């Protein structure tokens, strides 16, 4: 099981919609988050989409 030491931070690898949601929920619940993104900006594949079903909201 766990050792005595538990670090109150999390690394989230990937800055797409999934990683961002995870990072936000962790940060809001009191954990320090390192969000690691391979490319030059976060957003992932969803940022490439024009509109999304069913609300036709722009994906931004």
């Amino acid at each position, binding site marked *: 099981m766990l050792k005595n030491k538990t*670090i109150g931070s999390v690394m989230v690898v990937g800055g797409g*919609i999934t990683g961002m949601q995870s990072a936000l*929920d962790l940060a809001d619940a009191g954990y320090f988050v390192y969000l690691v993104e391979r490319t030059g900006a976060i957003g992932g594949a969803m*940022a490439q989409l*024009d*509109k999304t079903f069913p609300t036709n909201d722009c994906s931004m």
Partner: protein
Amino acid sequence: MTLCEVTDVAGSAGDFTVTVKENPRYVDMDKCIACGECATKCPKKVDDEYNASTGKRKAVYVKYAQAVPLKYQIDAEACIWLNKPGRCGACAKICPAGAINFDDTEKTHNINVGAVVLAPGFESFDPTGTEVFGYGEYPNVITAMQLERYLSASGPTEGHLVRPSDGKPVRKVAFLQCVGSRDENLCGNGYCSSVCCMYAIKEAVIAKDHVPGLATSIFYMDMRTHGKEFDEYYTRARKESGVRFVRCRVNGVEPQGDEGDLRLHYVNEKGQQIEEYFDMVVLSVGLQTPKHVLDLAKKADIRLTPHNFAAVSDFAPVSTSQAGIFTCGAFAGPKDIPQSVMEGSAAAAAAADILAPARNELTQEKTFPPERDILGEELRIGVFVCHCGSNIAGYVDVEDVANYADTLPGVAHVERNLFTCSQDTQELMVKVIKENQLNRIVVAACTPRTHEPLFHETIKAAGLNEYLFEMANIRNQNSWVHTGDKKAATQKAKDLTRMAVAKVAWQGPLQNFAVPITRNTLVIGGGLAGLAAAHNLARQGFPVDLVERSSVLGGNAIHLHNTWSGEHIPQRMYGLIKDVRNDDLITIHMETEVVEAEGYVGNFITTLRNKNNEKRSIEHGVTIVATGGTRLMPDEYGYRDHKEVVSAIEFDKLYEIRDKQVSSSNSFVFIQCVGSRDVDRNYCSKVCCTHSVQSAIELKKENPKRRIYILYRDMRTYSQRESLYKKAREMGVIFINYELHGKPKVNKVDGSFEVEVWDHVLHRPLLIPADMIILATAIIPNNGAKKLAQLYKVPLDNFGFFQEAHAKLRPVDFATEGLFVAGMAHYPKPVEESIAQALAASARAATLLSKKQVTLDGIKAQVDPDFCDGCALCVDVCPYHAITLIESKDDQGESHNLVEVNLAHCKGCGLCQGTCPKRGISVAGFTFKQLESQIEAALAV
């Protein structure tokens, strides 16, 4: 941390050291002001990945206009200087900030963390070199992502759908499904990518909006629209938008003439060989795990499935094979946005499970500058008019609107922005507000529903009270709906802006206020989702009250056999039930129902009633609705009349107890979609295709001589379940497709049964002798859902399932704060998706429970004692019971009736204001003066 890659993961759960390599950006992030001068001067053009290579970008670039962080970067492979120092350097010469740094180097960081969440995503299958559909050879064969970019206002053609070969408008487009999915031969991707059917429909519908008269055809094998509201969208696409659906596999795409036209040949549903011409072909490419993610998996030493996705248990859908390393999104199997978002939250819950002791140890609160007192200042309104790329600017003369705004009374400053929501514009807004001493802000852009909170933060950062703000929705309510009339749309944008300016002029500062949070959760429903949510919350250290209506915990799941991947469900359920029972932080209320509910986020009071009619009240900060679903009792196929016709769950029981009825039968006919995807219930129950295929495999395994038929509408063995479908076919299970208008018939002839169905391959009716007929019956909402929805004032969808706040981005939240939904109460779903949603609800709940207090906004009803005469009409209409009648004494000591508002209960809906005959009550931010000014401005043309 951008441009970063994980190179090593060492340590164990609770204490990892992760090595991260940061690649050089060659642009100093602190200096770059994202003016774009560098990219203007850069002579080197390369394919733009963001636009899926439909357009070009420079060697120095930003990924996209709204990129976060909005900082340029240099593509080292393409850059002339970095390859031959001294040769170019145009960007460094022009950069006004001196941000270009060719000497930038790779850096290594060692980071100590308690847990790792892997959300590395997917890549689209690249059809280059497959030769089958001519991608890469014929320019008018493109991928779905490329079409997405052509349709986008920020894409290479600004949303105009033209042919890549000659720029001519497109008239007729074909979508080919399952390219790089469900295909072992082409690419080895035997699984279903789960999302392509839905995105193809969406793209076909949107393309038709862009090009009036456009003909769109989707060539598919099975239409897998199994998500919430997906089948309704599919029906609308077919019936209202006129998208054509053709069930067949296209044999090939060939050029027709030398103008760029394309010829498709396929065998249609009547068995005829058809040739058809299109001017564009879109390949619905599947999702797969990229090479760099496979490397990452190796470094983190986590196990993968044969399809190269992260291996997980259905009972721990976000936990990898390494303790303390979690996964979410498409890395654990192809999935859509809502499911990915749910898993993002679920991974947060799973990580918090092990990190709870260290919560709040490393974080600090965000601070804002002190608020400027604007009392006594003259009106200085700032107006920011947004282009929204071409979403607004394409249909509205934005410059004209901005010039007009400058003439409005009280307006001190006007700006135009390409994207007002982008990070650089936020920084610009703060600067402009400070420099010009603005004291009211109007943003003429999109909807406050999605963007108001962002702008509130921005003006707070500029030292203004966040409520000194108004949005004019010149996009959703204007440019999007008046695409055909630029002049009128521009006029309407001016009107909306004038109204917003008039209203904000009377806006004063409002204060948010904080209320303490009860750190206890009420979970309603003791099925799989409820148990999973309660268990995780308790593991995070939060107390839970779990309410179950029946006398057993476990819900539907204890009646199921195996998950799709073969895990034994009852065994895992008993483990979970035991853990929940033994947890001191969880109080279980069996045979108990919710009878009354009141309160608001952080402070709910729910009254429970047990079987002895005893009532008790529970105080709780959040509520999780996990009331599950139930199965439909069908009226069709002789179910109620014959013992040979059974539902899938009943069949499982008979099979499990080795009932003679099963063991003596030789011919089994499964009928899918019984009550699902029907006229009254146009949704997919999601689990039944997989369930029937699993049963069929079991039967065949036991005795290969058995004849097994599955009559289906579309086989929806999505994601990696496809392997089961393949296995069943290989074992000799016969799959026969039927359509809604040609449902199978069950006939009893001389004491034995036969099922009659039209065979689309043989083109004649089939008569199948059947010993047992197994119905895949629909999953319907539980009968208590409606009452519960009324008690907590949360909405249900058309079919009686609970309606989440946002289909994509808030799949477990209700619109009302502090309430969450999980499991089949939301929509039919299999075990692992129910657990993921339950964990997600737990994570979302923890974001509230981990705080000591909750902040409520300042948009609340306020009473004007000079006008209120205590008639109490507002008391009756208030849906939140926020208003009470009190007696108050005036200066002379005379007593008057007066109403009083409980600010914590008030949601600012304004019903009281609309009802009050005396102007005695109004909502802050929507006062009579503000609304009057707005209306006067609307009429003053």
